[in-house]
């Protein structure tokens, strides 16, 4: 349990720590340190297990179906990285307390820093690759926020975006790689993956998986050619650079390579890809660092170079090289974090980071200068400091790289050359900043020593550099052994952590690098002049260009599909439906299944023929809108008859009443619209549409035929068996609607209500004047509401209401129910509007349809909630029988209350929609047509 605790406490802390902002910056800094302190305490008891090469595992199933588990695993490698993250994290919090200005939002800063810390711990402690991937992406996101902390600066925003684009893109590649690995191994659990190294390496997909995983690692660890984001991320506040870009985030890529070392390393592909990338990065970073005038720029490129060194070591393939790589991870984190902090102090106290202006600071801040000089000496690889030890190991290993004979000179040469540059830029850091004359035109003058506590983190880290440098076996020996054990799957080679191994070739290389570096630094002015002759490659410009080209491409692509024409979208939609469906349909092969065809009787055949002819005629006559509408209503009527013919009385009644309402609705709409459609489409488009329509129609015919002639079994027997006993009704359709699937129906009437209210809202303040004539020169009729219709409609209303009440009441047992009764009532009321006009009818209907809808939904919901009172789940229904005089034995089901809700909602929604359209014209609602003309 302690492992998830270590990972999730920082996230919890991110929520809680900002609450201490009222207590001042010290209070919030202390609060923010708590998660890391608890984390350290929680890891401590596991040391004994891990030191001997054991591992601690905590697993909880999360989504077992996709192999994602909530599993955390602690071994030597994970412990080493956890300690770096936690300890340097605490130092950074202390440092940032003094670094950030008073007006800056330190609560937000600490919250983001803690989120980052938690994500980073998640990466190193995950025991499942998918889980690790989640934390991996979280570090990309949180680092984006941290780099852009000063989001008023455009450079900071751009740098953050670049970092996110590069590391996020790498993250996608990594995800793909992990999925392939998981597919090969059959599990995403780290234990299983590490044990399946041979299986992975023998698999045909291994090169692909390796390339993808390495893409993720290289982008994260700023390896060439993806290194450019790191220098641009230096726009971040310095505590962020010190934490993310020296000790933790950029090490995530290195960590990943070390983590998957047993699973992926040891092949030719690994060797060439990793070691040559590392070599290029090592040299490039060291070279560029020399020529940067920005203090943080120098450190950033030096970081790139050191990351290249670690990568190169991991790529070499020898076991000792892997040990050296891990050793250098520790050393680089300590000296580089302290150097960044020192750079931050100098920036803080002088107001600039330009080394051409910062000179001779020794006189102003000797304490800071001493610390920075020790750390820089470690970076250069001066003996008695930790940087020297791992660099010696690196030099020694570079002599044993397994390369073809004509290339064996390459690694030692590159190593020595990079060493020379490292000495030169370290010398520059020391000499240029602290000596070399007097400060030039500093924004803040004279500079002072920083607050006492701001130096403590630097002191601790520099002390660590010295301790490791002088007593390596004592200070880091056990931890290094445990981490190497985990990386090398237990096969730790013999190695000696001593300061001097005697006079040998690596030592000579070190001495050579040292002298060469000092010479190079002394000749720096000539070098700068030479360097200035070459045009510097501006990675940012290239990156921006690529991004803008991609954006243009995306724009063009989107524009080519999405041109704003709905007509075109409909066409694309139908084309894609056809494209998706056509292969499965053709693969069906036989379209008449085992059941075969049944004979057609005459009435059905004639009905179908009428339907087909009317539908075709609707399409042909669609430009004459009124005629098309009449033909459409014939189709609807035939569909209703079809339902009746094939044993669905409920559907027939629903279809019939909906048909009436729909046609009235369309007639109303047609009143405002032009009554004919102009011929616009070109012949080519019409032909295309006809072809699409025919393909779609033939496809549906074939699917329907295939479906209808297949024998089938249905789940409906359940409903038939339980309708009477469980739902208390014999009309199974109605019982399904109000009981078995009542929740569904509740959702559906809610949709109905929302649609009606949406219609009301859309038309509320809209006025639409109907055209004065029907568009073909015929003026509207001057007749008022026809007398015959008026006289017939009025007595019809009570009759229709009685019928609908009857239909409603019998619905549970015979065809009928809330939906149909509601529609019948609506039709009866609509007839009044048609016959007697808006004003007359509205005068007599004294309630708002909104309220009817609300009441209906309330009844339906209350019928559901009522079940709770009796301790049953939502919408449980009950029923019993009562004896009414005259009517006789009568059944009362609680589902009837629900059905009443359906009834009211249907009436309210239908009429609200129609009345909203009806009163659209400012004239029609007030005046009769006679007055209007």
């Amino acid at each position: 349990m302690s492992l998830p605790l270590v990972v999730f406490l920082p996230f919890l802390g991110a929520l809680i720590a900002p609450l201490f902002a009222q207590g001042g910056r010290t209070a919030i800094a202390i609060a923010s340190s708590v998660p890391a302190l608890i984390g350290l305490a929680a890891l401590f008891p596991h040391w004994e297990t891990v030191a001997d090469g054991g591992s601690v595992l905590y697993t909880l199933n999360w989504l077992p179906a996709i192999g994602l588990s909530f599993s955390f695993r602690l071994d030597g490698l994970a412990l080493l990285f956890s300690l770096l993250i936690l300890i340097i994290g605490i130092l950074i919090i202390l440092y940032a307390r003094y670094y950030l200005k008073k007006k800056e939002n330190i609560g937000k800063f600490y919250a983001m820093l803690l989120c980052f810390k938690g994500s980073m711990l998640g990466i190193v402690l995950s025991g499942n690759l998918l889980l690790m991937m989640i934390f991996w992406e979280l570090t990309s996101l949180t680092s984006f926020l941290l780099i852009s902390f000063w989001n008023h600066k455009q450079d900071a925003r751009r740098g953050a975006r670049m970092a996110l684009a590069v590391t996020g893109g790498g993250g996608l590649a990594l995800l793909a790689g992990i999925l392939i690995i998981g597919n090969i191994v059959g599990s995403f659990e780290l234990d299983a993956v590490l044990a399946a190294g041979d299986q992975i390496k023998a698999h045909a997909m291994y090169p692909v998986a390796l390339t993808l995983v390495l893409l993720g690692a290289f982008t994260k660890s700023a390896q060439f050619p993806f290194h450019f984001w790191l220098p641009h991320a230096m726009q971040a506040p310095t505590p962020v650079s010190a934490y993310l870009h020296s000790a933790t985030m950029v090490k995530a890529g290195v960590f990943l390579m070390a983590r998957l070392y047993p699973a992926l390393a040891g092949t030719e592909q690994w060797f060439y890809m990793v070691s040559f990338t590392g070599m290029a990065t090592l040299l490039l970073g060291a070279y560029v660092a020399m020529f940067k005038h920005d203090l943080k720029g120098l450190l950033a490129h030096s970081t790139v170079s050191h990351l290249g060194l670690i990568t190169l070591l991991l790529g070499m393939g020898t076991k000792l090289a892997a040990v050296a790589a891990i050793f250098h991870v520790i050393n680089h984190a300590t000296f580089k974090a302290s150097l960044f902090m020192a750079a931050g102090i100098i920036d803080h106290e002088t107001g600039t980071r330009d080394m051409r202006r910062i000179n001779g600071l020794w006189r102003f801040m000797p304490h800071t200068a001493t610390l920075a000089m020790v750390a820089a000496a470690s970076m250069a690889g001066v003996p008695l400091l930790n940087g020297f030890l791992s660099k010696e190991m690196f030099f020694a290993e570079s002599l044993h790289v397994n390369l073809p004979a004509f290339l064996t000179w390459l690694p030692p040469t590159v190593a020595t050359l990079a060493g020379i540059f490292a000495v030169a830029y370290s010398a520059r850091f020391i000499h240029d900043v602290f000596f070399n004359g007097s400060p030039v035109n500093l924004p803040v003058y004279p500079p002072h020593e920083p607050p006492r506590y701001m130096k403590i983190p630097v002191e601790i880290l520099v002390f660590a550099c010295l301790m490791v440098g002088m007593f390596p076996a004592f200070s880091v020996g056990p931890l290094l052994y445990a981490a190497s054990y985990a990386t090398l799957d237990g096969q730790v080679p013999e190695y000696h952590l001593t300061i001097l191994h005697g006079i040998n070739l690596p030592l000579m290389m070190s001495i050579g690098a040292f002298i060469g570096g000092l010479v190079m630094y002394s000749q720096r002015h000539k070098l700068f002049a030479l360097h200035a002759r070459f045009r510097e490659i501006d990675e940012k410009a290239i990156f921006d260009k690529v991004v803008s080209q991609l954006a243009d491409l995306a724009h063009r692509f989107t524009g080519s599909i999405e041109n704003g024409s709905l007509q075109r979208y409909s066409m694309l939609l139908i084309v894609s439906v056809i494209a998706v469906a056509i292969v499965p349909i053709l693969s069906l092969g036989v379209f008449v299944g085992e059941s075969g065809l049944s004979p057609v009787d005459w009435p059905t055949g004639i009905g179908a023929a009428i339907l087909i002819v009317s539908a075709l005629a609707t399409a042909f006559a669609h430009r004459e809108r009124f005629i098309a509408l009449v033909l459409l209503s014939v189709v609807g009527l035939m569909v209703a008859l079809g339902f009746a013919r094939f044993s669905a009385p409920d559907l027939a009644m629903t279809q019939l009443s909906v048909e009436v309402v729909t046609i009235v609705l369309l007639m109303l709409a047609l009143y405002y619209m032009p009554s004919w459609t102009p011929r616009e489409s070109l012949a080519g488009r019409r032909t295309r549409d006809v072809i699409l329509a025919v393909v779609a129609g033939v496809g549906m015919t074939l699917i329907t035929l295939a479906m209808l002639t297949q024998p089938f079994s249905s789940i409906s027997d359940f409903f038939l068996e339980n309708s009477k006993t469980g739902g208390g009704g014999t009309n199974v359709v109605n019982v399904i609607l109000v009981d078995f699937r009542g929740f569904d129906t509740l959702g559906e009437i809610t949709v109905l209500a929302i649609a009606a209210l949406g219609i009301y809202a859309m038309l509320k303040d809209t006025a639409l004047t109907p055209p004065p004539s029907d568009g073909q020169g015929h003026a509207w009729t001057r007749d008022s509401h026809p007398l015959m219709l008026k006289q017939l409609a009025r007595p019809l209303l009570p009759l229709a209401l009685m019928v609908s009440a009857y239909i409603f009441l019998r619905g549970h047992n015979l065809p009928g129910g809330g939906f149909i009764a509601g529609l019948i009532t609506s039709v009866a009321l609509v007839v009044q509007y048609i016959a007697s006009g808006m004003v007359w009818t509205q005068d007599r209907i004294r309630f708002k349809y909104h309220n009817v809808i609300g009441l209906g939904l309330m009844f339906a919901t209350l019928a559901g909630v009522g079940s709770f009172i009796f301790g049953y789940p939502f919408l449980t229904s009950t029923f019993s029988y009562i004896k009414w005089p005259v009517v006789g034995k009568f059944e009362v089901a609680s589902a009837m209350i629900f059905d009443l809700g359906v009834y009211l909602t249907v009436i309210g929604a239908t009429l609200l929609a129609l009345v909203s359209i009806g009163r659209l014209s400012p004239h029609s609602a007030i005046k009769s047509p006679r007055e209007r003309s």
Partner: protein
Amino acid sequence: MELVFALVIGTLTATGVFLLLRARTFPVVMGLTLLSYGVNLFLFASGRLTTGGQPILGSTDNYTDPLPQALVLTAIVIGFAMTAFLVVMALRNLADNDDDHVDGKQPKQDAHTSKLEREVTGK
């Protein structure tokens, strides 16, 4: 019988699709109505075609499949609500744009390079 039923659904689909692709709102609404007839009949047909039956217990020996019927019943009502909504959108389009073309009136495409995009692309 099955073939006739399939042809009916095919015709409804074909005419519906054709009208759906027209340029004016009213034919599109009619097209959608035809298409929804077709879809409803198709859903209904998934319970197979039964002659002379009922989904009413005790009234017959020949029960039809009640489940597709229940589904289609609500589909018909919701279909009406959607048709009404669409008609109102068409009317609103007519009121706002003084035109019943389905595309409405669109501003020119190129004018919308926003500030954010400019920053992303660095232009």
